[in-house]
């Protein structure tokens, strides 16, 4: 495998820049954002150079590695800190640095009024560095470092405005939910080490047939848990909605395009485990299916534009996770949907940020309405993203989502039918809630209730959105033309072992999908056309109420985890106080009491001392006499 010396720079540059921005303090306020953006752009350039170099090499020598240093060397266990750039990582590198750079540019304008803009860029660069380490690590242990790094960056950025207690709490919630997933990842690494004695991707893949299916299933399930935490999948999904407390560029970059898709990357990277562990793979399918419907249902009832988009992200990642569960053919489609989703969801989030920018940070869609004519460019680019996500040809989502639905149906049997119907239903609900978002925001009567008209955002914000929406138009076609991405990824995700017979021809699936999408759109138009009130209706169905409360996920967590946890902690505290502290305190009390008793001997009377001496001497003599006798 050829080596490359450039890979280190991908991580070192943003990491270094982040350190400078954090250490330089106020001195860097005037140029910090420029440096952060330039650094991000240069990582993108390195990524492009590597991509073209990779393309020019023959297929079997495309992956490159770079060994940095020997990290752990204990007996037969060796972990090198080394990087691996293969066909899968390069997709992520380009997505992260490309979208990342656009969002850096956007943030210059979006955060221009914020006093802490320098710190924001420092965290963004930290995120880029960690995320690149995550996708470039050549072993699970290296990946884990990046995995924790993005968790940290996510925590710092969600709580960026931590002067508001609710935002700080949201950051903590995200951190705790991620922690549950991280436990899964660390357990997976431990089991892998116990099984293979090696935690590198290549080493494990080579020896995968030596492991028992139980061990592989355990590793797979733990990896799935990790993916659930990072990618906001059921049952660890509740943090994503609250994570919208962070600045909008963060929501676009971390909580839509890149970090939350790390779970999909993890499962795709571990394809050799999941292909041999059918139970784990089935669980992946179930989790993906549940989440795609879960997120979609929540999305229908949210009035906060960012939370509606967050619910949509959850649902779309559900699609990707489901696709990864479909085996070798599914991985490529999952990655394809991941890439197209990165474009259109980031562009929609940035569009939402642009609307908020023009609307004095109002996020409630009930207070929007008719913004389209004041912010035409934002509206048009958002429209492209909208058409892409609901899957209208020739926009990107059509190519990627249809493939997933088609593959789900082709799984065959009851399983295929259930998965296919779930994905179809998801597509219909997606069409409904996205149409709702678009109508409430850009069409209809003006409901913002003050005289200031919304204004279009500056060019520095609009250009990134425009570039991303170009991606949301064209990326699907480019990636699926001649199955480009599928062939590109073949060396990583195992060439297709067997060709599924096609139960349904692609055109039928496409027509079905378009049919349900049309139903969703029509229902939404019928429901939300005309004049809307500037507040949410109070008398709503049980389902709407449930969806507004995130299908009671927080209530469920609170009732089953938080309250019992509190009771447990309180009892443990009592046990600690009464038993353990009691033990320590009684030891103290014994010596205090003994001391008090003994103190009375020290009464200052010479005669009593003399008596004690006599008694002592007698005791000594008696003892000696008894012992020697």
């Amino acid at each position, binding site marked *: 495998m050829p080596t490359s010396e450039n890979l280190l720079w991908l991580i070192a540059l943003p990491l270094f820049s982040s350190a400078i921005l954090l250490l330089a303090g106020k001195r860097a306020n005037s140029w910090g954002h420029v440096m952060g953006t330039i650094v991000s752009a240069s990582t993108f350039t390195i990524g492009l150079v590597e991509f073209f170099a990779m393309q020019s090499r023959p297929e079997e020598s495309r992956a490159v590695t770079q060994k940095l240093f020997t990290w752990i060397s204990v007996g037969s266990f060796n972990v090198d800190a080394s990087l691996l750039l293969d066909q899968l990582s390069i997709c992520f590198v380009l997505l992260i640095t490309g979208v990342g750079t656009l969002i850096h540019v956007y943030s210059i304008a979006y955060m221009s009024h914020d006093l802490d803009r320098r710190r924001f860029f420092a965290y963004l660069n930290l995120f880029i560095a960690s995320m690149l380490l995550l996708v470039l690590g050549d072993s699970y242990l290296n990946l884990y470092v990046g995995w924790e790094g993005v968790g940290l960056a996510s925590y710092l950025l969600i709580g960026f405005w931590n002067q508001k207690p609710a935002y700080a709490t949201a950051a903590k919630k995200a951190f705790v939910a991620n922690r549950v997933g991280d436990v899964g990842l660390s357990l997976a690494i431990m089991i892998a080490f116990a099984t293979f004695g090696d935690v590198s991707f290549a080493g494990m893949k080579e020896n995968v047939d030596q492991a028992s299916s139980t061990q592989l299933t355990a590793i797979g399930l733990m990896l799935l848990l990790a993916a659930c935490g990072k990618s906001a999948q059921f049952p660890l999904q509740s943090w994503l909605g609250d994570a919208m407390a962070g600045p909008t560029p963060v929501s676009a970059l971390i909580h839509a395009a890149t970090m939350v898709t790390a779970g999909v990357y993890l499962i795709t990277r571990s394809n050799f485990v999941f292909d041999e562990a059918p139970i784990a793979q089935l669980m992946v399918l179930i989790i993906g299916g549940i989440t795609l419907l879960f997120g979609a249902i929540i999305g229908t009832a949210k009035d906060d534009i960012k939370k509606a988009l967050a619910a949509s992200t959850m649902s779309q990642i559900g699609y990707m996770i489901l696709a990864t569960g479909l085996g070798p053919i599914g991985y490529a489609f999952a990655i394809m949907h991941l890439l197209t989703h990165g474009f259109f969801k980031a562009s929609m989030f940035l569009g939402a940020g642009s609307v908020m920018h023009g609307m004095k940070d109002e996020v409630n869609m009930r207070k929007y309405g008719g913004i389209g004519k004041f912010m035409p460019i934002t509206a048009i680019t958002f429209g492209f993203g909208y058409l892409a996500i609901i899957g209208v040809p020739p926009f990107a989502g059509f190519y990627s989502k249809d493939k997933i639905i088609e593959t789900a149906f082709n799984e065959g049997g009851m399983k295929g039918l259930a998965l296919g119907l779930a994905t179809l239903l998801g597509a219909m609900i997606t069409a409904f809630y996205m149409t709702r978002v678009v109508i409430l925001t850009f069409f209809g009567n003006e409901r913002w209730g003050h005289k200031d008209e919304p204004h279009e955002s500056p060019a520095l914000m609009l250009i990134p959105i425009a570039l991303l929406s170009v991606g949301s138009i064209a990326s699907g076609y480019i990636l699926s033309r001649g199955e480009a991405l599928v062939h590109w990824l073949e060396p990583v995700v195992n060439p297709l072992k067997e060709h599924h017979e096609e139960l349904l021809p692609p055109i039928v699936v496409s027509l079905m999908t378009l049919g349900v999408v049309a139903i969703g759109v029509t229902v939404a138009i019928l429901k939300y056309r005309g004049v809307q009130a500037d507040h949410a209706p109070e008398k709503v169905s049980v389902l709407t109420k449930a969806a507004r409360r995130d299908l009671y996920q927080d209530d469920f967590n609170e009732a089953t985890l938080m309250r019992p946890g509190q009771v447990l902690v309180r009892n443990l505290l009592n046990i600690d106080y009464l038993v353990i502290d009691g033990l320590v305190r009684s030891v103290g009390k014994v010596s205090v009491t003994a001391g008090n008793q003994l103190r009375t001997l*020290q009464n*200052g*009377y*010479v*005669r009593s001392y*003399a008596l004690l001496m006599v008694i002592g001497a007698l005791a000594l003599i008696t003892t000696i006499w008894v012992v020697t006798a």
Partner: protein
Amino acid sequence: MAIANYLYLSAILFTIGAIGVVVRRNSIVVFMCIELMLNAANLAFVTFARINSNLEGQVIAFFTMVVAACEVVVGLAIIVTIYRSRRTASVDDASLLKR
């Protein structure tokens, strides 16, 4: 007369001295009782020297007398000083060191 009787006498004298130290309050009497105990010990030393037919016990008896003489000097000086400052010779009144 059996030589062991000297030892009994020594023990009796020592006991009387010890009891005197414990029960009497007058420091002069306590002091005399201490002398009594020292001399009881001396008697025992001499007796043992006799029993074992060597001179070590008698030599130690001389040492004891020297020590007792020094002790008398220091002890009486302390008693007199206390008497001067506190107008009492009772040992129970000199209990300021407690606590």
